[in-house]
């Protein structure tokens, strides 16, 4: 490497003079979500009786934990331009396995470990079909959505297992002192930090954005597209298993239908959080804001005894507006540009013709 043009040490030693890009971050799509969340929190605290209380934090967080957990790998997967619809089924399968293993008299530690392994194996299966065989993720995970849920039914049938160790189940609903924050949030925050750092501060994460925009460009800079995707699905399986375990122990009920339908809620939250379904765009803070916004809305409405009906309608509208608004803006700009150009064109047409 002696003959190369540049001495990298001098390059790296030179003083940074660039902008931090603060403005870009402050006005970005994720930031809007965060402002929206903050605004709604303030509104709820002022207008909904008893909202501003530590109890809220506890209950609300317990409610959003499964979505928040699964949203993390989902964010990364959608950023690469793929999707995973099987997450809730993996959680259900994990729950079913937990129930059967525990009812079978296995040590709880081992039960938890095996359950995580089951989820991971499900992720490996997805990853193999999508990254290695190269099948479309939407179709594959619709298939595994049914398959994993089906396996959950095969494993545990219509039974429910409820007699998990009391210390364990109460740990899962316990709070950190008087803060009202659930103890398990420590673990959740660790997972969130892991994925946040992975996405935003590691070479791997950089690669994911590049892949999302253009797989070809990513290949050209030496990113192993298939391998990255494979690991994302494995991670998704593992985290879905965690969510399944949380679900089981929080409700102290292992059933095959646990967490069913959660996949669409997760995807809605992730998209609302500013992740583009086309891939390439999105951030973990934005997604956290998206998840919390839906969660808070949900909780505030329940506290205000407003029906869930309103909630699902609002969620749907938010989702539509969040994608339609930006492209409507672009479409209007484009239309005005075209109109202007056409006017110019017609204008200039006559003099040229006469020349």
């Amino acid at each position, binding site marked *: 490497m002696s003959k190369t*043009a540049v001495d990298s040490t001098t390059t790296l030693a030179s003083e940074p003079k660039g902008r931090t890009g603060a403005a870009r971050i402050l006005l970005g799509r994720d930031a809007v979500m965060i402002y929206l969340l903050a605004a709604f929190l303030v509104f709820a605290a002022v207008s909904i009786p008893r909202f501003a209380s530590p109890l809220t934090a506890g209950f609300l967080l317990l409610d959003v934990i499964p979505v928040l957990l699964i949203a993390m790998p989902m964010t990364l997967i959608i950023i690469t331009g793929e999707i995973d619809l099987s997450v809730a089924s993996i959680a259900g399968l994990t729950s079913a396995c937990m129930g059967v293993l525990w009812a079978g008299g296995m040590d709880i530690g081992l039960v938890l470990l095996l359950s995580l392994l089951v989820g991971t194996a499900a992720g490996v299966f997805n990853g193999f079909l999508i990254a290695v065989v190269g099948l479309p993720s939407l179709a594959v995970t619709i298939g595994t959505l049914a398959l994993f849920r089906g396996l959950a039914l095969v494993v545990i049938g219509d039974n429910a297992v409820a007699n998990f160790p009391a210390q364990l189940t109460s740990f899962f609903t316990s709070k950190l002192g008087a803060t009202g924050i659930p103890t398990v949030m420590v673990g959740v925050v660790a997972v969130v930090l892991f994925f946040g750092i992975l996405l935003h501060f590691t070479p791997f994460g950089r690669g994911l954005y*590049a892949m999302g925009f253009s797989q070809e460009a990513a290949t050209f800079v030496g990113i192993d597209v298939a391998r990255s995707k494979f690991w994302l699905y494995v991670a998704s399986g593992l985290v879905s298993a965690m969510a399944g375990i949380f679900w089981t122990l929080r409700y102290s009920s292992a059933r095959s239908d646990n967490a069913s339908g959660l996949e669409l809620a997760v995807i809605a939250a992730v998209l609302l959080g500013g992740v583009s379904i086309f891939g390439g765009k999105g951030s973990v803070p934005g997604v956290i804001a998206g998840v919390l916004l839906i969660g808070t809305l949900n909780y505030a409405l329940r506290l205000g005894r407003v029906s869930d009906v309103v909630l699902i309608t609002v969620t749907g509208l938010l989702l539509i507006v969040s994608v339609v608004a930006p492209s409507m803006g672009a479409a209007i700009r484009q239309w005005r540009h075209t109109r202007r*150009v056409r006017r110019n064109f017609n204008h200039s*047409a006559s003099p040229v013709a006469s020349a």
Partner: protein
Amino acid sequence: MQTDPDLQGQPPVALSLAHAAKTFGPVVALADGTIEIREGEIHALMGENGAGKSTLVKILAGLHQPDSGDFRIAGEPVSFRNVAESKAAGVSVIYQEPTLFPDLTVAENIFVGRQPKGRLGLISQGEMRRQAAALFGQLGVAIDPGRVAEGLSIADQQIIEIAKAISLDAKVLIMDEPTAALSGVEVDRLFAVARGLRDQGTGIMFISHRFEEVFALCDRITVMRDGKYVSTHVTEDVSVDRIVREMVGRDIAELFPKEAAEIGAPVLSVRGLSRAGVFRDINLEVRAGEIVALAGLVGAGRTEVARAVFGIDPYDSGEVLFGGKPLKGGSPQAAIAAGMGFVPEDRRKQGLVMDLSVARNVTLTLRKRFARAGLINGRAELRAAEEWSRRLQVKAGSPEHAVSTLSGGNQQKVVLAKWLATEPRFLIIDEPTRGIDVGTKSEVHRLISDLAGRGIAILMISSELPEVLGMADRVLVMREGRISAELSREEASPESVMHAATVAAATN
């Protein structure tokens, strides 16, 4: 063009475009697009790569709306909002890139939107296939009209495009490099068909880089350069040399200053590289400080060779030696680790991640290098990005701006910066100045020359003759997947390169 006295009193003008302009953001694709096609003539449009021919075609097709200009069909001013309108006005286009529907049958590809109807007003597959077969008969080819288009060779795709266009019975038929992928027999048949159409009064516009074709077929020739109209000639009255001069229009040596550099030991040796159906028995060597140009017509397989060398595509046989050691095939990671870089031809799709910032793009190749304990040091990253942008004089508002906001030339500099930052020993540069304006072009050339001066071995793929002749120490010419000639800087001339690129006899 209206000034040509020979054509006074000739058949009426079928289509005319005057002083059309079209810009894409900072890129001026067309500054003064002017052409006039008469009924019953075949009119060639010639110009270098990037001269704006295809852009002009797309305006005629209604695909692009010009920013200004006068566009008439049969004397009436028109302004098409979309392709359907131009079609309705009798303009039929064969695009440079085939645009087939892979899942539809060949026959259906030809007749989409106007399939023949049978009983009950339903599409008659049989009739459609019969008509398609008849068209193929006219063109003298035997493609099964019932098969799907998926997997057809480029040549067959092109033939289907031609069949599609002539079946439209258009008043004006525009063909953008229809022959680029065709064999001699097919070209001859196409010409016969084109002459037949001309004799029926159709106005035909024909784009090709091959002089012998243009001179054999066309009645008039219009030349474009750098997005501007240059001249129109009656074919009989003009020579190839004159056209070449008008197309290039500048002194090659002045524009592309390759500085002499010390040529060192071989960095890359490729031996007997073959990939079935793509390229065959490629041998080449690039030395430190040397610029080797890979010339040839579009479609000759140059890019494919480069992709295989870099590990993007696999190859069937042969080997790649890098610094004397064999390089693992099929792995860009290995190539990068060894010290290779690749500036691809398609900047937007392959070279850059358009929506990411300049800084991110520059450091994309360096992801691992800035990681401390697995985490990227953002400041060091930004610093490096700025340093490299500065060295290459990238003009960007801020390194945080999306690279899509930059002009083509500056984007290309970002791609170069990205690879230079990896401190490569060998760089493949595919079409270094495609879509770059003339001013920035010479800057990019200076840069490449500079790199060679510092001992980097460079393999440059270029379809622009002046660029090849001006920059290269050695020119390898490819034709149909093989290297057909190796020319030293002294031997290389427009004639010798073109000859090797087009004429079969030159090889063996």
